[in-house]
C-alpha cells in the first residue's frame, strides 16, 4: 500500500494558510499536514537534506522551521533518522513539500507530520521569508489557516514568550536518570517514544549499565547532562563501545559522580543558555572532578560556567555547511550548526579576529578559545587548560550534516579512557 501523493492528486481540496511574523510580514502558502496552527520562533535552516533529523532535534523545540531548500520530503521518513523520541519543531514552512514513501517503506513526510499533529505549509516563497529574517532577525511568528484573521494570529503570537530568557531545556530533557547500555537499547527507547522505563529491555539495560559502573564491561561509562541531547550523539558514543546514563540537567553533581561515570557530556539543547542557571551551577561543581565535553548548548553552558557571557545571534546558525577552524591545528571542518545564541569572548567581543587560540584567565583557571566560525568569526569552541574540559558550539555528531568532526568523539572517549585508567 502506498500513501497518497499530494503532488499527484491533491488539487481540489487545497487549504490555504499563511506564515505571519510578529513584525507583520506575511507569507502565503498551502496547508499540507495537520489541520492545526502553531506559534513559536520562526527560524530557517540551509541544510539541503535531513528534514526529519532536524524536526526531531530537541534543539528546535519552540521553533518553526523554514527550509531554504525547496523540495522537502523527497525520500520519506525512517525510524533510524530520529534524533529523539518525537518531533520538537512546531511547524514546517516549505517551498515544495513532497509526500513520497521511503524506498525502505517508511512513512511519507507529510503523513509523518500529519500523524504527529504538526502543521506545515508548502508553496511558500521561503526565499523571500529567509531574506526578511536575515535583515529583520529571527522573531516570533506562526502558521495559520487562511480563515484565521491576522489580528487573531498576532494575539496568538504575542502570547508566545520570546526566545531570549527562555529555558526550554526543561521541556526536553529526561525526567529521571536513564541508563542506555547499547544501540539496541537506544533504538528501543526512541521507538517507544521515551515512555518505556518500565519495559523489561530497559531494566536489563539498566542492570548492565550499573554493572559497568561497578567496573565490569568493556567500554567507558559516560554520563550525559541532558538538556535535549540528540540521538546521533548517543549513537556515536554507543557505537564506539561506551555505555551511557542520561541525567536531567538539574541532577546534583554528587549524584552523578556517585554513579561512577568516566566522563560527562554536556548535551545540546534549545533555548537561551542564560536561562538555565541550575545547569551552569552543576557544571561549575563538576569541573576538575570528571572530564567534561560540551556540544552546542553544552558549549554555551560550559562557557557560562567559567564566567563568559552569551548573546543572541540575529538569526542564528542553522545549516550543514559552515566552515569552522580549529585554531590549534589549522584544520577546517565543514560543520552542522544549530544555534541561536553564541558565546562572547572577553570584553564583549562577538568575533574572534585573530587566527590563533585566544587565552583567557577565568574564574576556574586558564582557558582558551579554540575554534572559530569562518563565516562570521563567532566562537565555536573552548578548552580549559587546568582541568579536562572542552566544548564545541557546532554538531560533530552531524545528524543531519557532514561527518568531518566525528574525530571529536574519539577525543571524548580518550578523555573517558584516561580517567578510567587514573581511577584504577
Amino acid at each position, binding site marked *: 500500500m502506498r500513501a497518497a501523493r499530494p503532488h499527484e492528486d491533491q488539487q481540489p481540496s487545497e487549504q490555504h494558510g499563511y506564515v505571519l511574523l510578529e513584525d507583520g510580514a506575511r507569507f502565503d502558502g498551502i496547508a499540507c499536514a495537520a489541520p492545526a496552527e502553531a506559534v513559536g520562533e520562526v527560524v530557517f535552516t540551509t541544510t539541503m*537534506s535531513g528534514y526529519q533529523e532536524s524536526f526531531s532535534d530537541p534543539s528546535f523545540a519552540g521553533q518553526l522551521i523554514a527550509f531554504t531548500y525547496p523540495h522537502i520530503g523527497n525520500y520519506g521518513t525512517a525510524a533510524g*533518522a530520529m534524533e529523539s523520541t518525537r518531533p520538537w519543531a512546531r511547524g514546517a514552512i516549505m517551498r515544495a513539500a513532497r509526500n*513520497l514513501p521511503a524506498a525502505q517503506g517508511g512513512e511519507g513526510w507529510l503523513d509523518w507530520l500529519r500523524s504527529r499533529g504538526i502543521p506545515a505549509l508548502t508553496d*511558500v516563497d521561503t526565499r523571500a521569508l529567509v531574506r526578511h529574517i536575515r535583515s529583520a532577525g529571527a522573531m516570533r511568528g506562526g502558521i495559520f489557516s487562511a480563515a484565521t484573521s491576522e489580528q487573531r494570529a498576532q494575539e496568538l503570537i504575542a502570547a508566545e514568550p520570546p526566545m531570549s530568557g527562555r529555558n526550554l531545556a526543561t521541556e526536553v530533557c529526561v525526567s529521571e536518570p536513564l541508563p542506555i547500555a547499547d544501540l539496541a537499547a537506544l533504538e528501543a527507547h526512541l521507538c517507544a517514544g521515551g515512555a518505556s522505563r518500565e519495559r523489561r529491555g530497559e531494566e536489563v539495560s539498566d542492570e548492565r549499565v550499573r554493572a559497568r559502573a561497578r567496573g565490569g564491561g568493556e567500554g567507558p561509562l559516560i554520563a550525559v547532562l541532558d538538556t535535549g541531547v540528540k540521538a546521533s550523539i548517543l549513537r556515536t558514543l554507543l557505537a564506539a563501545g561506551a555505555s551511557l546514563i542520561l541525567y536531567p540537567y538539574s541532577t546534583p553533581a554528587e549524584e552523578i559522580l556517585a554513579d561512577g561515570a568516566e566522563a560527562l557530556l554536556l548535551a545540546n539543547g534549545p533555548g537561551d543558555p542564560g536561562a538555565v542557571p541550575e545547569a551552569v551551577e552543576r557544571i561549575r561543581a563538576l569541573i576538575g572532578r570528571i572530564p567534561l565535553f560540551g556540544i552546542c548548548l553544552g558549549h554555551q553552558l560550559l562557557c557560562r560556567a567559567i564566567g563568559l557571557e552569551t548573546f543572541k545571534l540575529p538569526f542564528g546558525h542553522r545549516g550543514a555547511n559552515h566552515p569552522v577552524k580549529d585554531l590549534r591545528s589549522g584544520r577546517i571542518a565543514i560543520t552542522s550548526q544549530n544555534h541561536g545564541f553564541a558565546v562572547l569572548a572577553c570584553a564583549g567581543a562577538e568575533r574572534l579576529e585573530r587566527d590563533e587560540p585566544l587565552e583567557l584567565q577565568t574564574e576556574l583557571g586558564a582557558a582558551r578559545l579554540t575554534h572559530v566560525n569562518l563565516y562570521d568569526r563567532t566562537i565555536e569552541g573552548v578548552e580549559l587548560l587546568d582541568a579536562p574540559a572542552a566544548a564545541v558550539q557546532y554538531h560533530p555528531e552531524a545528524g543531519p*550534516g557532514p561527518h568531518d568532526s566525528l574525530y571529536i568523539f574519539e577525543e571524548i572517549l580518550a578523555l573517558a579512557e584516561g580517567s578510567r585508567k587514573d581511577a584504577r
Partner: protein
Amino acid sequence: MPRRRDLRKILILGSGLIVIGQAAEFDYSGAQACRVLRSEGYEVVLVNSNPATIMTDPELADRTYIEPLTADAVAAVIERERPDALLPTLGGQTALNLAKELAESGLLDQRSVELIGARLDAIATAEDRELFREAMARAGLAMPRSAVVSTLAQALAEAEGLGLPLIVRPAFTLGGRGGGIARDRDELAEIVAHGLEVSPISQVLLDQSVLGWGEFELEVMRDANDNALVVCSIENVDPMGVHTGDSVTVAPQQTLSDRLYQRLRDQALAVIRAVGVETGGSNVQFAVNPASEEILVIEMNPRVSRSSALASKATGFPIAKIAARLAVGYTLEEIPNDITGVTPASFEPALDYVVVKFPRFAFEKFPGADERLSTHMKSVGEVMAIGRTFAQAFAKALRSRELDRVADLSERSTEQLLGAIAVPHAERYDAILELFRRGADCAEVAQRTAINEWFLGELRMLARDPRRAQRGARCYRSVDTCAAEFPARTPYYYSCFEQRAEDEIIPAERSTVVVLGAGPNRIGQGIEFDYCCVHAALTVRECGREAVMINCNPETVSTDYDTSDRLYFEPLTLEDVLAVIERERRLEGVIVQFGGQTPLRLAAGLDAAGVPLLGTGVEAIDLAEDRSRFSALLGELGYKAPAYASASSIEEALERAQAVGFPLIVRPSYVLGGRAMEIVYTPEQLAGYLRREGADRSGRIYLDRFLERAIEVDVDALCDREQTWIGGIMQHVEEAGVHSGDSACVLPPHSLDEGMIEQIRSATRAIARGLGVVGLLNVQYAVHDGELHVIEANPRASRTVPFVSKAIGIPLAKAACRVMLGERIAELGLPTEREGLGGGSHVFVKEAVLPFDRLQGSDSLLGPEMRSTGEVMGIARDFPSAFAKAQAGAGVPLPGPGAAAFISVTDADKEAAGALAQSLHDLGFKLLATRGTAAAIARMGVPVTRLQKIAEGTPNVLECVERGEVSLIINTPSGSGARSDGWEIRRAAVAHGIPCLTTLPAAASAVRAIVSACVSGRERAPEVVSLQELHADEGRCAPGSSQAHAQERSALLGSGSPPAH
C-alpha cells in the same frame, strides 16, 4: 599559506579541439585559470590549438601558443619558455594525458618543470584502472567487480566469472569513447575489439553491470592543508548505463536521505585523498543501489571537468578559478567567496533552487549513427536551467534546448511510446511526458526506465498540469552560494515563479546593453559564437556601459558571472528575453549579431516589441536573408551569383530545377550549419531528397546552382554603414560544396592573385554598404573559371571571427561592438595595409574537427551539411607547414616518408591523383590503389600495388588498414550510401585515426605538407611562435604603423591588454 614565491612562470595546457566529450567547458576553466594566475603576478604561458577560445586571446596570457597539443610542440614551447611549472588540470583529458606523456618522457625533470595541481602519481592512480582499484581497496571503498584485459580472448574468459551484462570501457579515452554495454558474448566481442583499438594503451576494463542503479557525482576540492569539501552533488536522472554527459542531471541530489548522502560525501573525500590529489578539484562518480543502499565508486577525474563547470555555474562556486589558486599554494580559507565577498571559499554551497542540465544531440546530422544512449557520450552540447522547483527548472531546460524540430509524438501509440522509453535515446523525456499526458502512471514508467519515482512524480505533475509549476508571478532571484543566508554581491540571476513578485536585481547605474548568447553548443553553432558574445560584453563594459548577458549554456565563458555586469541564466526564447529586458530600465539596446542564429531568430520579434537593436537593423538582416531581394541587390551592384530558385512543393521544385541547372544545392530556408543541405546531380536525386526531407514541412525550398570545382572564399569584414574594413580573406582548402564550417581554410589565400583579392575586397565593400551593415559581415564567394560569384552574405558574426582575429592580431568582434555602440571605423586605428591578409610573416590554417569517431555508423564524407564540432589552427611561415600543424592539431598528424598511402579516386580525379602518387613515391611512400586508380598511377610509371574492391575479396584495403599497413588515405567519393566501399574505407580510417582526405585539393595540400616536412628535416623540433611575438613583430614591420597606431590598437584590445613587448 600565501602563494608560492618560488614559481615565476607557469605553463598551462588547454584542451585543444572541441569534440564530443570535451567542449567549451575547458575554455571556461582555462580562461579563469589564466586570469587568476596573471592577477597573482605569475607569468603565464599557454598552449592550445583552438583559436575559437577566450583563453587564447593574447590578453589572457603573457605568451599564447596556438600550436598542436602534441608532445613535440609542447616540448618546443618548454625549450623556448623554460617555465617553472606545468598546470595540466584545467585542459581536460587532453592536457592530463599530454602532461603525463611529457613527465614520463623525462622532459619535465630535465627542464626542472614541476607538475602542479596534480602530481604524476595522482594522475596515474586516477587514470590507470588497476592502480585506481588498488587505491580504492586500500581506502576501504567498494567498486564494481571488474577485470582489465588486453586481448579479446582474455575478455571472453573473464566474462565467465563476472557474468553478463558487462560495461566495457577502454582506458585513457575521452568521454568514454569506444565503450559500451555488452549484453551477450557477440556484443562483448564487438565492443571489446573496438575498445582495444581506441585505447592508446590497448587496455579495456570490464565492469559488473550496475544498470539501473542511481548515478551520482560529487565535485570535491582539496587544499594543501588537507582541507577538503564537496562543492556540489549532482544526481543523474537517467540511472547508470547512460554516460553522464548524455544524461539529464540535477543539482543538488534529490533522492538520497541525509544519512546516505553523507556516506557518499565521506567516500568522495576519501577518494580524493586516496588518489593523492593534493590541491584542486576532482569529480567522483558513484553508483548507488536505492534499495540496498549499497554504494560503489565508479571513477574519479583528478581535474576540472564538464561536471565541474556545471557545478560552478549551478552553485556560483568557481571551481577552476579556485583550483588555480590552490595549485600555487593558497588554501581554501585564504580565498574569498566572490559572491558574498565576506565569507571564505572553505565552505559548501547551499542551494535554494534546483538546477537541471539537459544534453543537446545532433543525430539528425549523422544519418546511420546509432542513436541509442549508452556509456559512450554522443551529445554535442548542453543547456542548464535554474528554477525554484525541479518542475520549473525542467520546463525551462526543455525550452532552452532550442530544437530545430520538436519531436511530434502525438501519432505514436502508447504501446510504441512505452516500448521506446525502455531504451535511452535523445527523445526519451519527450516520450515520458507524452505518456504522462495520456495518463500513464509513475510505476509503469519506472518499471521501464528505472528512473527514480521522485523524478517521475515531478514529471507527471509537469505533464498533467504545466501551469501549476509556474503558479504566481515571474521574478528574478540570485544564485548566491548560501541560500540567502548572506547578501550576495555578484549579480547572477534566474527567473522563477513565486507568490511574491520580489526581484533581487541590482538596478543599473549606467546605460545598459544586453548581449544575447548562442544557447547550447550544436553543430554549426559552437564556441566561436560564445567567443564573440564574450568580446561584446567586455567591449560594452570598456565603453562605459553595463553589459547584461542572457544565455543558458553552462559550458561557456559567457555564463561566467565575471564576464558581464549582470548575468541572466535563461532560455533564449522571445518570451524569456523580453521578460529580462522589461526589468532592465536603462536599456540602450540589444546585440543580436554575435550569438549565431539563436539571437538572430529573435531579432524581428524584439524589433516588433519596440526593443532597440544595436548595429545592423532587422531590415538589413532581411535583405541579406531574402534570396530574391539579395539577388536583386547583387544585380544592382553588378555582381554575379549562382542561378537559384525557390519552391514550396516537390513538383514546383522539380520544375524550377531545370531552369537552375544541375548540379545544384538544395536546402530548406533559414538553416544553420547547412542543416539538411545536399548536392544533387540529377532530377531523380532531387526528388529523392525532397521526399526524404518532407519538403513541404519547412516552408520554402531553395535550389542553388552548384559551381563544381570552384575555389570557395570566406570574408569577414567590419562596416559602420559608410566605411568597410576587410578583416580576413580566407581561401578554402576543399572546393566549393564542402560546408565552409567543415572545410579547412587558409589566410592569406594561397592561390588567389592580387587582382582577384582586390575584386573580393571591392565586392565586400559594395555589399556591406548595399545592405547597410553596422557591425560584422561575412560574405562567401566562389571563384569559378576565374570569375567571382557571390554565394551568400550574413550580416553577423561568423564562425571564422575568432580565427581571423587571432591571425591578424585585431579583435574583430570587439571592433564591431565599438562600431555598434556608435564609434566610426576611422576612429579605431585599424591598419590600412594588406587589408584582409594579415601581417604577412606567417600563414594561418584553420582545420575542422569532425566527430565521426564518436558516432559509430555515420559516414565521414564531407558535404554541404556541416558536421564538424570544432576547429584548430596551424601557424607557420609557409602554407604546407601550417597545414601540417593544423592536421596534427586535429589529431590526425600526417605521416612521414616511407609509409604507405592508399589512393582511390573518382574518374575525374584520376589524372591529378597520379601526380600526387608520383610525389609520394619520390618520398619513399609505398602506394596501394584500387583498379582504376592503380591504372592511372601505373601510367605515370609509378609502382603501385593493386587492391581488390572490398566485395571482390582479398587483398583489400580494409585488411591493410586493420593490419596497420596504411598511414594515409586519399579517397574521393563516388556516391555516399551505407556500405559502399568508400563508406567502409572512411569508417576504417576514422576508427584507426588515419588521415583520410576526401577531396583532391586537401590531398594536394597534405602531400605538399609531407614534402615540405621531409625537405626541412623531421628531426628538427617544430618551430613555434606565440601570438604576442607574431603581432608585435608585425606591428613593427608593417609599413605605416606608428606609435599612435599601436596605442589605438591597444585601446581596442581593451584594458586587459598587456604592455607591448
